[in-house]
């Protein structure tokens, strides 16, 4: 009988579960022992069970294409990814530190701009930022926290160190998949949850609800919370509905809300208008309020910014928080931590070259074939160049694109991001993965135990985004201290 581990290659990059073809790491010892006790048919059966559960639970995401919008089943790999609690405690601390500094920075940008005055960052970076909203200057959201929900992407390089790749501070998505992945894994491998001390993750909706409640004025005992979705054609609609349902909040679309002359936000109910206190908005700034931002937006609510500025409604994340979700600003986060918190960063950044800096630009252009070049403000893995995987023609084209608008590009060394065993046609093969933990900040700060592990299902691919052939895995933070 062929082993599912046959020819497992641990030489490609750091492997999360395996030291070598036959040697599991300490954290994955029990999992590997268990997997080895199953035969190929057992494993196939569990894979089929997982796929069926995904279909029946209707876990989907929407892909936009010329033939219309297609609801696709969420691609899931049944082999979990494992992290030790010991490592996780440090990462968690680092994530809290990072978001606290980022929020200090955003508050400062819309206030006195001390960071810039102190010479820590050139003023043009903010002036030229697409996500800087002058309408937000002088506003103080509750707890002076602007980014309440953050999804930070972490990757592990060949040195075994976890690096921060980016901070998603606009409308990060994926948390519902993190929760559903666990539900499926419990169904598929219930035996494993008996012998292992796996940290639970299903309190996220309660934590989110508590954080959102903490944004309402103190005088309101039971604030009315809504989740504002762009609607059923949005790729993350499943998640919007899921989170609303889990929190017991109302899921609303722009047309369900109205801002009256008293600058308060109301929703249209069967009992007439009902006041809304907190909006977890899953709509980008641009579409939020046609009175202030894009005039042609039909997704938003006219007057929403008026109501927010008057302090009559809280928006999470606050408009303008995206100013720190910029890959150029990213390069300054370690400095922010030192400046605002007077601490050393716990989680390292990836070395970043800013094309807006003439010296950096010169280096980048000379080393394009080795670097990863990314636009400063895109998400979803679009519009980037992976030097070592690109053709000479693509590299030449990108050279022209960067030179046209250097401020809008950054470059980083190509990381050898870590791999984890993934079930491919009945055998385990290493596939590249990343990790997106979610951090909540309101009155207090919360970090999920683990996060969403995304996996590039195509052999050799480094792109983990679901819109581009990525899948995901359950993520286990395992307490080894009892062993």
């Amino acid at each position, binding site marked *: 009988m062929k082993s599912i581990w046959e020819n497992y290659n641990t030489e490609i990059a750091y492997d999360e579960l395996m030291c070598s073809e036959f040697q599991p790491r300490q954290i994955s010892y029990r999992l590997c022992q268990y997997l080895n006790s199953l035969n190929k048919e057992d494993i196939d059966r569990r894979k089929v069970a997982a796929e069926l559960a995904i279909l029946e639970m209707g876990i989907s995401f929407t892909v936009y294409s010329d033939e219309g919008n297609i609801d696709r089943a969420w691609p899931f790999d049944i082999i979990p990814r494992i992290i030790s609690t010991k490592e996780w405690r440090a990462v968690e601390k680092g994530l809290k530190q990072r978001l606290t500094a980022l929020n200090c920075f955003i508050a400062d940008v819309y206030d006195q701009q001390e960071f810039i005055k102190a010479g820590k960052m050139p003023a043009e970076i903010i002036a030229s930022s697409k996500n800087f909203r002058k309408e937000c200057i002088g506003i103080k959201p509750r707890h002076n926290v602007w980014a309440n929900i953050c999804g930070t992407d972490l990757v592990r390089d060949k040195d075994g160190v976890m690096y921060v790749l980016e901070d998603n501070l606009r409308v990060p998505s994926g948390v519902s998949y993190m929760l559903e992945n666990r539900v499926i894994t419990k169904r598929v491998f219930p035996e494993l949850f008996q012998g292992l001390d796996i940290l639970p993750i299903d309190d996220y909706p309660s934590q989110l609800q508590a954080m959102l409640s903490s944004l309402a004025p103190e005088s309101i005992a039971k604030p009315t919370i809504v989740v504002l979705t762009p609607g059923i054609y949005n790729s993350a609609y499943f998640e919007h509905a899921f989170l609303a349902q889990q929190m017991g909040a109302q899921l609303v679309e722009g047309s369900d809300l109205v801002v009256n002359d008293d600058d308060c936000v109301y929703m249209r*109910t069967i009992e007439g208008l009902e006041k809304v206190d907190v909006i977890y908005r899953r709509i980008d700034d641009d579409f939020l309020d046609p009175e202030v931002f894009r005039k042609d937006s039909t997704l938003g609510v006219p007057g929403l910014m008026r109501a927010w500025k008057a302090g009559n409604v809280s928006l999470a994340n606050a408009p303008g928080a995206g100013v720190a979700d910029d890959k150029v600003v990213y390069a300054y986060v370690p400095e922010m931590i030192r400046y605002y918190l007077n601490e050393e960063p716990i989680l390292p950044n990836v070395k970043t070259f800013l094309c807006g800096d003439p010296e950096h630009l010169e280096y980048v252009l000379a080393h394009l074939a080795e670097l990863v070049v990314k636009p400063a403000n895109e998400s979803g893995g679009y519009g980037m160049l992976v030097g070592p995987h690109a053709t000479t023609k693509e590299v030449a084209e990108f050279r022209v694109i960067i030179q046209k608008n250097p401020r809008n590009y950054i470059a980083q060394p190509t990381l050898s991001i870590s791999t984890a065993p993934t079930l491919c046609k009945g055998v385990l093969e290493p596939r590249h993965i990343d990790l997106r933990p979610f951090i909540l900040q309101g009155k207090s700060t919360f970090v999920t135990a683990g996060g969403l592990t995304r996996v590039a299902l195509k052999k050799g691919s480094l792109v983990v985004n679901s819109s581009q052939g990525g899948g995901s895995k359950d993520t286990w933070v395992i307490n080894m201290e009892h062993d």
Partner: protein
Amino acid sequence: MLSRSAERLYWLARYIERTENIARLVSVHMNLLMDLPVGVEMGWQQLVRINAAELEFYAKYQSANERNVTHFLLTDNSYMGSLFSSLSAARENIRTSRDLLPDEAWEQVNEMYLFVKNNIESIHNRSNRAVLLKEILKGCQRFTGLLSGYMSHNNPYRFIRLGKNIERADMTSRILDLASLLLAESRSEDMRQYETILWVNILKSLNAQLMYRQHVRSSVNGDDVLNFLLQNTDLPRSIGCCLVNIAACINSLPNSDGLPAELVKLEAHVQAIETKGTTQVQLRSILDDLQNKLGELHNKIADNWFLRSSAE
């Protein structure tokens, strides 16, 4: 509760009820036709008639045979009234109302949808079709049961109950339309011979046979069946009972305005219908009138509670 959500739940319930009704209708009819001689007026074309879909049907098919009618009523996704279309519409409505319902409700509808979608080709075979219809009936019952057991009987639940009962009353009135055939003076000798079987079939289409026997305690006859299905207030699928349920929902909902009074009038109207010795023409006009009144009731519910894009 959002007006938009109220509307979606109301339609969700109507579509699920319609799915269940079509499944039961086709399944009962299949059984009936096994008992009847070939050529009786009660053929497959009657199912198309009940759904008021003759025009649409004959635009696509030459003859109303078993294959064509079952295809049209069960799986034709270009016909809005087919079982698959109703189920797809129910799924779309529940997909967008998940914040108000228990998880299991969505999973139940989604499972049924996937089941029909994956077995759509198998329905031409009688025994496969019987299995599929049975699964659908079970699934719809499970859906109703789990909402009743898992969900607070709150305003969202009331809109579901409202939609379900309006759809139910409408379907009962359509099935009674079949009865008008039995009252036709011109009906054939064959038909007269099988009359009891046909009346029983009408009861079965509404899951009412056992309850009829317990309630009426006499042999099955036209007058009593009509009376039972129109005016009984205990049988879930009689029009009288649907109206009681509709009134209960409307009376508990906020801002019901003039609707409770309308309902009192409608209930009185139904109870005043004379069901003894009704002729075919009289029954037709009673049913047409009832269907119009249910349509008006729907419009008033929509005006009262649902999202009107122009309304401020």
